[in-house]
């Protein structure tokens, strides 16, 4: 290899290069801190400004309010009405209804597919399953939102005779499609990471392949599956375009999955463009952003923590 000719070493260049690379690596760290800082900054008036608190204090956002004298107190999200109402309860209910449907749909499919591809699938089929799931994950959420809005909603309405075309069920199912790859990937990783020695031990005791899977691999990989579910839930809460397009966006306090819903993420997406800069409404939208950030941050942190523990345990055992 005559092409490689190295110039004399320069300590300064070496030093500057390393520091530049190190500084670059801090971008991700800085980004996380800046995201929190710049979003929370705009939500501070809710805690500090009495003028803003008259309309939107923490208690006004969570406790039932009597908006007109003599009327029954209720939770209500109507930021643009004459008496602005900023109760987060309807949005909370909407967010969790959509996430619930998504998880009920995605967990059996994601975990089932993970079990099949790590335990039963012939090697060649496995090489097909993974790209298929990757492609599913690659579909832009606005395309899924479009599909749920135009196609799936009509199918569901015709099949079940629903009153509202756009509802929690419709949005939740589409949301589930984005959650499946998350659950699948994490669960599959955990199962393939179970050491061979464990499988061999069960086989030596006379277990056939599926007994090995269900008595050995699955229990050992259970924390990984749980982590997949946790991370998938984080995804379901934060996903925006699907719920914005397919959920009906009506902030209703109801337990029914066939009513329209309005989620945290969709509320921010729909109202941010028209909100008056610096108004209480503006502050509340950034407060919702802060909530979403903190919620998903904690969810991701706990998912990662479970995976870290699992990895340490499995590696510790094989040493």
């Amino acid at each position: 290899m005559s092409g490689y000719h190295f110039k004399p070493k320069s300590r300064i260049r070496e030093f500057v290069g390393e520091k530049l690379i190190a500084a670059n690596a801090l971008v991700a760290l800085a980004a996380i801190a800046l995201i929190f800082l710049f979003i929370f900054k705009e939500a501070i008036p809710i805690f500090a400004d009495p003028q803003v608190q008259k309309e939107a204090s923490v208690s006004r956002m969570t406790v039932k309010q009597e908006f007109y004298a003599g009327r029954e107190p209720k939770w209500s999200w109507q930021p643009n009405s004459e008496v602005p109402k900023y109760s987060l309860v309807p949005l909370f209910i909407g967010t969790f209804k959509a996430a619930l449907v998504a998880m009920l749909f995605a967990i059996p499919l994601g975990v089932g597919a993970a079990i099949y591809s790590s335990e039963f699938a012939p090697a060649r089929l496995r090489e097909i399953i993974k790209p298929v799931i990757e492609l599913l994950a690659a579909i832009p959420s606005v395309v899924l939102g479009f599909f749920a809005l135009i196609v799936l909603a009509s199918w569901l309405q015709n099949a079940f005779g629903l009153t509202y075309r756009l509802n929690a069920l419709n949005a939740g199912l589409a949301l589930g499609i984005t959650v499946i790859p998350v659950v699948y990937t994490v669960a599959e990783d955990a199962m393939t990471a179970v050491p061979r020695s464990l499988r061999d031990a069960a086989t030596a005791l006379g277990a056939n392949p599926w007994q090995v899977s269900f008595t050995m691999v699955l229990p050992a990989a259970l924390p990984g599956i749980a982590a997949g579910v946790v991370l998938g839930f984080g995804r379901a809460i934060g996903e925006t375009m699907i719920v914005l397009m397919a959920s009906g966006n009506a902030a209703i306090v109801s337990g029914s999955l066939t009513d329209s819903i309005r989620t945290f993420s969709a509320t921010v997406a729909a109202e941010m463009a028209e909100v008056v800069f610096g108004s209480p409404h503006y502050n509340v939208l950034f407060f919702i952003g802060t909530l979403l950030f903190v919620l998903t941050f904690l969810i991701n942190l706990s998912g990662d923590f479970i995976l870290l523990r699992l990895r340490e345990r499995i590696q510790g055992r094989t040493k």
Partner: protein
Amino acid sequence: MNAESRQVPLVFKSKTSGRIPRGLTFAAVFLIALMLVIIVTNIFLGGFRTVDWTFLTHAPENGMESGGIFPAIFGTVAMVILMVIAVVPIGVLTAVYLHEYTRPDSLITRLIRVAINNLAGVPSIVFGLFGLGFFVGFVGSGLDSMFYDSPRPVWGQPAIVWASLTLALLTLPVVIVSTEEALRVIPRELREASYALGATKLQTIIRIVIPQALPGILTGAILGVSRGAGEVAPIMFTGAAYYLPHLPSSLHDQFMVLGYHVYIMATQSPNMEVTRPILYGTVLVLLALTILLNVVAILIRSRLRSRRAYA
């Protein structure tokens, strides 16, 4: 739960064939594949008649009821090019730092890893808020008050550069993870050979390690582009516009983009029956773009992996 403490039956008696669990889990795989097929087929059938050369190269006309989507394609491409210029160097150097300079268990490495994992999990709408608050409101307005003396904002308004930078942050984890995977494959002997020839660490990284990792870096960039091209929530307040008569000509212009076009047409079209073919056509272009990019990335990666198998 420990393996030691778990009760494992010492003799497996029942010789059930396992056909039921096998069948059930296969059904899950089948259903997932079926969903992919249904979605792609539906969008293809709804859109392929609309998508032709005229559709791809002309601007919308009559309030989106006829014409094409060229400005949205142009905006999407311009946006992801700017995004790649920002995200690839940062992502690659971060991966190099984590893999070549620090030990995996050092505090700073772990902190950066936590940050990367969490960055990947931040909801896209939160990126949108951040882009608005930080890039438009802080950096942009800051530039305006320092260098411009005009009542109308120049940089302190939604613009293509801010949308691209917001997406760069969103796709940073994709590029880092992909690059790191490539760095792990490079044999240590290659680095040692470089040192033996008298190269310094920095020279080794620039002339040996990074060129060797190029396929992985390329994969990361492609996956990042695929992700960025389809995102809508992060750019809806930071630069995307529904209709503009002119193409963006500078970094501080607003721009049209495929994903946002789909969102507005699907939710705010006054005459759905007329615009439906154009809507389907736009969705098909966007979907075809992302699927194509992902297939390319999958192919590059599978070649990379088979190379490792023979190394």
